[in-house]
């Protein structure tokens, strides 16, 4: 296995330390992000997902433990954050709210310009980034930022971060608030992006279905600690453990789980709709099902 792009070890962080309002957000987190993979970070609200993400690009510094981006140590105050941000780029929730320039291309150019790159290079990056999100610069570059639709604005914000050309893209709930088509498009974009070069994505989300679809590995947080870790298949196969943490399993797992409970199917680790279809087809063929009671799965 090649060297990790990001390595987190024993990370601890407390908000407002030393005051009566102190809250320990991270209590010793360790995991790593390797080139070419998508790491999904899930956990109930308050488990420390956002705090963890903010450590990955240096917005927050570890109070104990280490966060290494390549050979840069983020616990060291002297580390140049600019260098970190050329490798790890963070996209917040509702990123369309952060657009401030009048014209789209200028907003996308903000990040690279702040890095101090020459204008020609910035222009090239803007074109590449906007193409990558499906908003070609020739058409959308000179449009008014506030004149785009919500979904377009979100993609423009993503372009602004992609223009930093990081190795690792860190996303906090990137699909929240999008309609199903918007979500599909965004996920497809991200798939395309990570397939090029040895890039990695870290994705924090409540949307289990999406994480199940995209993630190679999953880290489950609970109250600032890593509760579960493994490949997506491993983690989502642990239905009981996830339920105990108050996390809803992906829809596919819920349906299959109900069928397993009714004794109609053997347990499996199918994660996606594609994998579940053959299993369900095998059911349809049977004619002796009769009036077997199947527990209902509520629509979520």
């Amino acid at each position, binding site marked *: 296995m090649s060297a990790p792009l990001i390595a987190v070890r024993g990370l601890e962080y407390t*908000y*407002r*330390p030393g*005051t009566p309002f102190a809250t320990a957000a991270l209590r010793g987190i360790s995991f790593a992000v390797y080139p070419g993979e998508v790491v999904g970070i899930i956990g109930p609200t308050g488990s420390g997902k956002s705090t963890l993400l*903010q450590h990955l*690009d240096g*917005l*927050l510094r570890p109070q104990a433990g280490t966060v290494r981006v390549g050979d840069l140590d983020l616990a060291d105050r002297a580390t140049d954050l*600019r260098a970190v*941000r050329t490798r790890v*780029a*963070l*996209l*917040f*929730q509702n*990123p369309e*709210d*952060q*657009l*401030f320039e009048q014209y789209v291309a200028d907003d996308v150019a*903000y*990040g690279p310009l*702040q*890095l101090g790159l020459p204008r020609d290079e910035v222009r090239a990056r803007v074109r590449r980034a906007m193409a990558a999100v499906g908003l070609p610069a020739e058409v959308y570059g000179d449009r008014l930022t*506030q004149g785009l639709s919500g979904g377009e604005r979100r993609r423009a914000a993503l372009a*602004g*971060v992609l223009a*930093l050309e990081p190795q690792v893209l860190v996303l906090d709930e990137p699909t929240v608030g999008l309609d199903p088509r918007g979500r599909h498009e965004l996920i497809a974009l991200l798939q395309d992006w990570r397939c090029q070069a040895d890039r990695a994505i870290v994705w924090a989300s409540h949307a289990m279905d999406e994480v199940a679809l995209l993630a190679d590995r999953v880290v489950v947080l609970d109250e600032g600690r890593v509760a579960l870790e493994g490949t997506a298949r491993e983690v989502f196969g642990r239905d009981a453990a996830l339920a105990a943490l108050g996390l809803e399993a992906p829809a596919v797992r819920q349906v299959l789980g109900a069928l397993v409970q009714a004794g109609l199917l053997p347990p499996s680790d199918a994660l996606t709709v594609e994998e579940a279809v053959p299993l369900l087809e095998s059911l349809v063929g049977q004619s002796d099902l009769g009036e077997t009671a199947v527990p209902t799965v509520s629509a979520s």
Partner: protein
Amino acid sequence: MSEFDVLRFLAIGQYLPSGSVLHRLDPRVKLTGIALFALALMLLASPTRALLGLVLALALLAAARVPLGHALRGLRPLLPLFVIALVLQVLFYPHREAVAAGSLAVLAWGPLVVSGAGLVGLGTMLLAMVDVVFLLTLLTAIADVSDITHGIEGLLRPLQRLGFPAHELSLMLVVALRFVPLLGQELERLLKAQAARGGDFGRRQGGIVQRVRRTLPLLVPLFLAALRRSEELVEAMESRGYTGGKGRTNLVRLQLRPADAVALFLVGCAGLLFLVVDFGPAEESVADWLRGLLTGA
């Protein structure tokens, strides 16, 4: 402490629901009582009144079961001001004239003269400030946001008959108070999001235009977020049948109760006491009292 923690100071006073007698008063009484008290302190300051104010404020804080430590913590941001005020008073007060007029020369070191009158004046001002901060702590401790807004609306309602848009103003107040934490959080998110893109807002470099342009990534989205939320709220209100304040009734009806009458009576008494108390040239009385302490007892 996170440097991005914008909201920290916005929670000026904590609501401390200790269920005391003061908490159960009508919000209008809470507001009027404390407002009158604070006004009296600011307008009628004198050394004895400031001291009386301190005693009363502490008594009220105790009655409301506010921990002393909490009240004292509210004074912390004032400390730099105390130092500034001291320096200003030492330098700008006409000390020599006061000494010539009979005041005590507390300090006479070369060209620097500090008179007793000057110090007493400084002490009065600082003490009055302390009292006002205690009162504010008291108010926020015994009245939460909904209390305060009901109180203000209730107080302003009689003015509605004179054509004063009381309903609109109190609605505006409620909405503004709701927006403050929302926009504070938005600002915090913007700080982080733009910093993640390399934004450097505090940089002290370049001409005025450059510095201002550096703040645009924060300010423009903040205003836009506020305007967007306003649109959403207007739509939400109108689609729920809001057509203005005419004929609207409240779910919570404010009613004065015996406890409120007692409270008002006590406020009246305190007010009278305040006006009456003022033992002549304050400086002498304090000086006498001190002298008496040091020599006699």
